[in-house]
């Protein structure tokens, strides 16, 4: 058990800089009640894939690939519904309102807008918002750079409209 605990700690230290990204993915791909479950699934997916990580590639790219892969094909399980109230509680405890409340409200609307997009668009816009270059997004998804650019332009317009409609209460 000692060796396993040390291995888990080493993994946790390695993943720590990317935990925020995993949380953003879980907020963008799952409804609030399921975000805790998806976050756990993302963590486990990266943990399982970790032995295949090679230092010559970027850790961030590796985490993005595994996490987006899991999130894209993730489906809420029936058993998880029973734990919904616990999940909401855990999620809320992880989300203290910091900074400007208006900014936090806008961010929540943005996440709501992202969640209404189709899964592939969700993944593309998340990667773009996280500052991943078009070339890298194209390689991760197996699309051409031009295709990624065209899709992102369309998604940005749609997302802006979605958030604006939400603010206007349409």
């Amino acid at each position, binding site marked *: 058990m000692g060796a*396993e605990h040390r291995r*888990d*700690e080493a*993994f*946790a230290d390695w*993943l*720590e800089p990317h*935990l*925020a990204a995993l*949380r*953003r993915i879980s907020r963008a791909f799952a409804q609030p009640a399921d975000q805790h479950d998806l*976050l*756990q699934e993302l*963590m*486990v*997916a990266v*943990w*399982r*894939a970790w*032995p*295949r990580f090679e230092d010559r590639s970027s850790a961030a790219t590796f985490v993005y*690939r*595994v996490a*987006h*892969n899991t999130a*894209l*094909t993730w*489906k809420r399980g029936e058993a998880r519904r029973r734990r919904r109230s616990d999940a909401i509680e*855990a999620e809320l*405890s*992880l*989300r*203290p*309102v*910091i*900074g*400007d409340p208006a*900014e*936090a409200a*806008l*961010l929540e609307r*943005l996440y709501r807008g992202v969640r209404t997009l*189709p*899964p*592939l*668009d969700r*993944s593309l816009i998340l990667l773009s*918002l996280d500052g991943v270059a078009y070339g890298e997004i194209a*390689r*991760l*998804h*197996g*699309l051409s750079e031009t295709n990624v650019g065209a899709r992102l332009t369309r998604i*940005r*317009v749609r*997302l*802006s409209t979605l*958030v*604006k409609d939400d*603010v206007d209460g349409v």
Partner: protein
Amino acid sequence: MEFDRLEQAWRSDANTPTDETQALLKEQLMHTLKSRRHREILLAGIPATTLTLFTVMALAAVLKNDGAGWPGIAMLAVCWMVMGAVLWNGFRHRSRDSGSPLRDTVASLLAANRRARSNCHVFWAMLPVFMLPLFMAIQRLQVDGRMNTTAGWQAIAVCGLALAASTGWNLLRYILILKPEQRRLEALLADYEG
């Protein structure tokens, strides 16, 4: 609303975990890993313990009867091999990440889903093939006087129940898991093509 404004909100403090949240996330990660490992050990441990128990009992019986009943040990050896193969296969495929682009992963998941659905079709097509020899064997045993009518009905009931349970399980898996997953993956792949 301008997208630049949304990007600004994305990069704001509201979307950046505080040190406290970061520590909570790490704690949650450690807890998740621990509980997942316990679950995996339990899942592997239950069949291993059961099989060990059967093996010990069978070995004791064979030793007590001067080697009689050794084919049972051979059958248990096959069970051990199958369990080892299943566990090894499960361990090898713990991660679906193959380093390929996500589009290829979706395509391979869809191919795996197609194979699983084909297996279900084969199972259903084979059902009459299972049933026919069963009826014929029971009838033969009754004709030979080695099985009375009551025992024949009991045998049919037990085998029928096992087949019904197996069919039901496959049917539920097909309707509730495989078909919705197929639709989801096909839509996702179509999105990549579009």
